[in-house]
Each structure stands twice: as C-alpha cells, then as structure tokens.
C-alpha cells in the first residue's frame, strides 16, 4: 500500500464522513419537521374528539421520532380514549421502563388501570403521577392529577380517602375555579364546615357568583343548616333566576325547614306534629320490616299527648325504620335522617 493510496483513502473517508454527517443532519431535520406536523395534526383531531384518527397521526409521528416521549405518551392517551387498552398498555410499559418518574406516563397508567377496573393499583399510579416529574414547574398538573384522583374516589364513594386527598390541596395556591371544585369535593367528602369556609372566602371576592352561593347552600344543607341553606339558595336565585336546579334546591331547603323537628325553641306540639309527619313519610318510603311498619301505623293512629317524649318516640321509630330502608328517590329524607342520627333532638 503506497503513501499515495493512504492519502487518497484518508481523503475519501474524510469526505464521505462529512457528506454522511450532512445527509444525517438533513434527514433528522426533515423527519423531525414531518413528525411535528403529524403530532399537531393528531392534537387537533384529539381535541375534536376523534381519538382513533388522532392515534394514527401520533403513531406516525412517533414512528418517525422514537426518541420523543411526548409523541409516545400522546399516542397512549389517544389509544386509551379510543378504547385500545392493549396497545396503550404496551406503550405505557415501554414509557415507564424508560422513565419511571414521568408524571404524564404514570397518570395515563393510572387511567388505564381504572379502565381495567383495578382501582387500588390505579390510585397508586395517581400518587406516582402527583409526585412524579412534569415538564416545567408542573404544579398545576399535579393539582389537576390530584383532583382527577379525588373525582375517582368520589365516584367510588370513598369519602375518607377523598378527604385525605383534599387536605393537601389547602396548602397549595389554587386559582378560583380550582378552589370552587375543592369546596364542592369537601361537601361530597362530608367536610361541610371546610366547604362552607371555602365558599364564604370565595364569596368575599366574588359576592355575586350564583354558583358559589348554590355551592354554599349545598354545604349548609349537608351540614343540616336548612334555614341558612334556604337563605343561600334564595340569594342565588335572585342573581340567576333561570337556574332550575337552584329552584329545586330552594324548594328542598324550604321543605326541610318546615319539617325539621330539631330547632331548640320549637313548641312541643309543633315538634310532635313534625315527628308524626316524619314517621309517616319514612313508613311510606320503607316497607321492609312489617313488624316495625305495623308498630308505626299503630303509633300514628293511637291517641297521644303532643309532648316532647311522644315526639321522641316517633323519631326513634322513624330512625329504626330508616336503617333498614332501601334508597329512595327523594333527597329530603336522607338529608333529614342523617341530621337526626347525628344531632340530639331534645
């Protein structure tokens, strides 16, 4: 091998390397642009509620640029929406293997497990998502993820866990809409005082907000403060008279005020009459226990003095009947009976 040949070879290798590097750069750039175009097209379709078509575009984008985890995760999200759980599972497995701390990947995995009816594992991935890594600050994404988990817990009726998830949110700086949601969840979790406190705080900033007043009314209803709830609903109705739900809530609160036997200064006769009415309503709603039903019928037809004790007897029987009662369509009785079971009536 001559020196001339070595020089020619070195020049050839150098020239080819430069040419290849140039071509590789052009390819990366063009493929990147094409992938980005497909990705945005996919996002557009996804927002227009066409997840299957969006998944096609995301898949194409991801096949062009495999290193882009954003494409992969949006593909998984679209496939989840389109109901293609197997493919989503494969993609998320891969994404989590590459980055186990990814907030978005953990959130999607939580949703996948939720769709697969594996709630405990799903909750665990929600927590990983909340404490995982998100692009930028990620504060808002963490809050939204926690709210999604709370919504799931609400649907499952797990009020205790809901409250446990809500309490950390009190420490976060939340925007108006999120605080409204939090207050509503507090009501659903049974923390009516906290809910009312949040609503009242928000009302100092937005006194004319009918939603807030209605929400406060709900919290007060759940807390057994029927008169206050009626007042809140009436206020909301004055601001937004077209809201039919507020009208219904107002009627409910008025009904509860009219039948509530617990106010301290209520005369004995009035308390007796209200107890009689409650027993009659519960008797009509609950036909499960024939003995108790007969007992309530006897009690309602028997002559009795309209005393506090007689009222108390009727309320106790109503509570016994209520315990074995199937769920009813009415909102009034559950609210009232919950209050009676927690508050002394005398």
């Amino acid at each position, binding site marked *: 091998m001559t020196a001339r040949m070595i020089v020619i070879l070195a020049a050839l290798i150098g020239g*080819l390397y430069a040419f290849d590097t140039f071509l590789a750069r*052009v390819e990366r750039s063009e493929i990147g642009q094409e992938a980005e175009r497909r990705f945005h097209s996919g996002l557009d379709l996804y927002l227009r509620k066409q997840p299957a078509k969006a998944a096609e575009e995301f898949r194409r984008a991801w096949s062009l640029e495999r290193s882009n985890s954003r494409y992969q995760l949006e593909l998984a999200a679209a496939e989840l929406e389109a109901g293609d759980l197997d493919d989503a599972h494969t993609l998320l497995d891969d994404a989590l293997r590459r980055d186990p701390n990814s907030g978005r990947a953990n959130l999607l995995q939580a949703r996948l497990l939720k769709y697969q009816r594996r709630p405990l594992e799903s909750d665990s991935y929600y927590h990983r998502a909340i404490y995982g890594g998100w692009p930028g600050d990620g504060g808002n994404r963490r809050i939204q993820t926690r709210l999604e988990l709370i919504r799931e817990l609400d649907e499952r009726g797990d009020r205790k866990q809901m409250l446990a998830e809500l309490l950390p949110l009190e420490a976060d700086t939340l925007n108006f809409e999120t605080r409204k949601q939090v207050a509503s969840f507090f009501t659903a979790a049974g923390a009516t005082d906290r809910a009312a406190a949040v609503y009242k705080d928000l009302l100092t900033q937005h006194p004319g907000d009918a939603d807030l007043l209605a929400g406060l009314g709900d919290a007060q209803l759940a807390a057994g403060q029927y008169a206050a709830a009626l007042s809140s609903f009436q206020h909301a109705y004055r601001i937004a008279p077209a809201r039919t739900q507020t009208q219904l809530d107002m009627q409910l609160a008025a009904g509860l005020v009219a039948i509530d036997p617990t106010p301290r200064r209520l005369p004995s006769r009035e308390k007796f009459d209200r107890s009689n009415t409650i027993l009659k309503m519960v008797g009509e709603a609950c036909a499960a226990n024939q003995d108790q039903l007969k007992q309530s019928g006897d009690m309602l037809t028997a002559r009795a003095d309209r005393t506090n004790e007689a009222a108390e007897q009727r309320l106790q029987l109503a509570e016994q009947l209520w315990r074995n009662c199937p769920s009813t369509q009415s909102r009034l009785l559950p609210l009232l009976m919950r209050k009676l079971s927690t508050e002394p009536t005398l």
Partner: protein
Amino acid sequence: MSTFQDREARLSILLSFLIGILVGLVVVAFVLLTGRLSARMYPAGDSPWRRLIIPILGSLFSGWLIYRFFPDARGSGIPQTKFAIFINNGYISTRTVIGKFLCCSTSLASGIALGREGPSVHIGAGIASVLARRAKLQTSTVKAMIPVGCAAALAAAFNTPIAAVLFSLEEVLGDLHAPVLGSVVISAATSWMTLHLLLGDEPLFHVPAYQLVHPAEFAIYAVLGVVGGLVSVAFVKLLLTLRRRFLLLPKTTAWLQPVAGGLLVGLLGWFFPEVLGVGYDYVERVLGGDSPLRTVLLLGGLKILATATCYSSGNAGGIFGPSLFIGAMTGGAVGSIAHHFFPTITANPGAYALIGMGTAFAGIIRTPLTSVIMIFELTRDYSIIVPLMISNLVAFFISARLQHEPIYEALAMQEGVYLPTGEHRDELDEVRVSQVMKSDEPLGAAMTVQAARKHLDEVQRNSWPVGDSRQIIGVITRPQLDGVKNGDTPLSAVINSLDNWPYLHPDHRLSYALERMGTAGADTLPVVSRANRSQLAGIVTLPDLLAAFGIARDKA
C-alpha cells in the same frame, strides 16, 4: 516466501478495517441519499399522479443508465458478487460500484418495489475488490476480501452485524468455516460502529416485546413455516418465470424493459401506496399487530407481483427487503387467523409477522441460520429463537423440496453461469472416504518389483499399498519401481513408509482425499484405521473419487 505471506496477512487485516469504515460510510450515504430523494419525490399529501408517473420515469432513467453505462448494475448484486468470487477472481470494477450506487439510488427512490440490501452487498464487495487490487494483493487474497466487503455492507444496511457475518459465509461463500472469518468479523464490526457513529442505535424495525402465550403456539409457528415456504416458492417461481420471459426479448429493448416494472408499481401505487419502495414503514405497522387481515393479504400478494416484475424486468434493486415485507404480511395473515380462532392461546398477530419475516427470508434466500440470527438481532429478544427456528426450518425444507435451485443460483443459471450451490457442496461434504473405498488386496512385501509393475499395469494405477490384508507397511509408486534395475528385488526393499506418505482415514471427506492425492501425485491412497495406523481399512483410487463427484467413471 513466509515474509511475503506475513505481509499479505497483515495487509489483509488492515484492509478489513479500512473496508469496514469505507463500506460503512458508503452504505450509510446510499441509504440516506435514497431516503431523502424518495422524500422529495413523494412529499406528504402528494397526488396519486405522482405515484403513477415517478416509478415509470425512475425505471426509464435507471434502465437507460444500466443499458448505456453500467450493465453490471442490473438486479440485486448478490449473484454478481458470487460471479466475482467463483468466476472473475474477485474482480468487480470501480465503474460497477459507481453504477450500482447511482442506478439503485434512482430506482429505489422512485418507488420501485425492490430492496437496498442486495445492492449494498454488491457495492461493499466492489469496494473491497477495488481496495484489495489497488493494494496489489494476490488474486486469492482479493477473492477473500469480497465476503469482507459483503459483511461490512450488510452490517451497515441492516444494522445486524452478526447476521451480516453469517450471510457472507453461509450464502456468499457457502462455507461457515471459511478461513476469512476473522477478517469478515472485523469489517462487519467496524462498519457497524461507523453506522452507529453517524446514525445512532436505531434498529431497522421497532417491534413490541415478543411473547409466547402458550406452548400450543409452536404448532401454529410450524403452520406458518408451511405457509411461508409455499409463499416463498410461489414468489421465486414467479420471479424466475418472468425473468426467463424478459430474457427472451430482443437485447435492444433492454433499456426499456425496466419500465414494465415501473408501470406496474405505478398502477398499484395509485391505489395502494404501501406497495411503493421497500415498504418498511408498513412492515413496522404490521409488526405492531394492528393491520386488518384483508389488507395484509392483499398487500402481500401485490408485493409478490410487484417485486417479481420489477426484478425480472431488470430494475436495479434487491429482494432482501421485499422478502421481509412478504414474510411480515404472510405472518400477519396467519397470526390474524390464529388469533381469531384461538384468542386465548395465541399472541398478537404482530408476533407472527415478526417470525414470518424470518420464515420468508429462509424460504426465499435459503439461509436459515442467517435469518434466525437476523430476526434475533432485530428484536434483541432471546425468547423468539425457538419459534423462529421451527418456522424457518419448515419453510426452508418446503422451499428446498419444491424449488431445487436456490434463487441466486437459479438467476445465475438464467445468465448462463453455473455457481456452486451451498447445498451441493454440503451434499459432497457429506460423502466420506468410507463410502467410496474398496477392499482390494495390497501387494505382498515379498512380491518382486517386476510382479508389482505388472500389477500396476493391470489395474492402471501409478501407486499401490504394500502389506497384507491385516497390516499395511507402506506404498509403492511406479517411478520407484521404474528406478529399480533388478526386477527380482522384493518390494520390502523399495517401499515408502507411511511416515513419509499420505494416507486417509474412513471418515475423511472426499475433497480432502483429492487434495492429498494431488499433493502426493498418486492416484491411489491407502485408507487406515484411526485407532491403528498399520491396519488397512481399504483402498481409494482417483477414478472412484471422480465417480463419486459425478465427473468421470472408471472404465477399467
């Protein structure tokens, strides 16, 4: 002499590195250039007219280039590479390398349904040949450098360095024990590193993790092997038949013939864009397991038609890539059907598509070992090996039974060139000395020189063992006998001891027996026991060996 051989050996090693780097760079340029050209010819959202016109124009232009300037750039390049090794003393011209690069870039970028791996192999072999000749290496070393270039090219084109080494030995050389193994490994590794330096660790296909759902799937993989074998045979027979027809056309039309492929691909591409080019994008989708059965079946059939027409009409491009496409479609179809009927015990159709790729490769190219390793390297998943082996071997067996000549040898035969097939060599290698030796009696040690001369005249041989039926003591040759003046001299006084004379064992291969006869200049050799060299097992003569090879018959 020894110094000269040392220099050759050192230079060969150095050249293997250089070939690896240079071929790696050229193949990466080839792949990237073809890809970018194709992207410009078919921009996103293109009109169907483009898909009709561009393949026609591409095949017309590349056909003219081939006819006018680069006649050796036609087709895949694998048969031409084998011509270089077995016929042309390792010679591939620089012009052929340049022509292959230009013509294949043009035709593949225009959407012709052929692959880039075969041409890459030819380009790699050409670069190796040119470099070895420029380095003034001996002809035998130049020949030995051809598989070195092939391995480098395939390692860069497929991103599968081990399969590249195996392919060079199994298909190109037809000998897995070839002495160039070291150089082949060096060049494949160097080329692969060059590829990684430029493009990173991107596999050819991104495939989901493979899983065997139930042992009963092995039976379905065997069925896939049967189907894959039959599809392979259909493809090969169609391609060879069409090629035969095209070869009957007047030579003056050779520049226009590739347009037949371009026109067909254009028409099919109008309705099914997936048929255009090598189609790896669509293969990846099928490997993902989300393609409907009807589409997979249709595309598999159309690809067979398109590739067979494009190749036989003389377009530049290979059949590696299309084999993988056809295999993926076949596997996808079998997998879809199996998954439909046995959803609980079968994997996603994508897993079958993956195995199907190897199956078709084994059936069409007839390199079962390379195909197993190649798919293993593509997936990097050990659990795929056993299903792959089952399916590949079934396909290989069926293909070998129904289409005797492997595709590259059959194509070479159509060109009037008879290449030695690996299978034929294997068959010969399987014949051992024990199968052709005879139990003729040796000459007695007490026999006179005169009597021995008479015996050699009778049997028409120039040498013969000396001893008795149980023990051999040496060999006598005609020149020795002729050198003795006294005809009454006993043979024991003039014989060659076995210490100085070649002999054979019953388990030696016939090629080795021929080699030993050539070295000794004798047409008869004794066959002795491995346990006791003095014990004569038989006698082998040159006519018997030649008869075993089917070359000549011993008239005597």
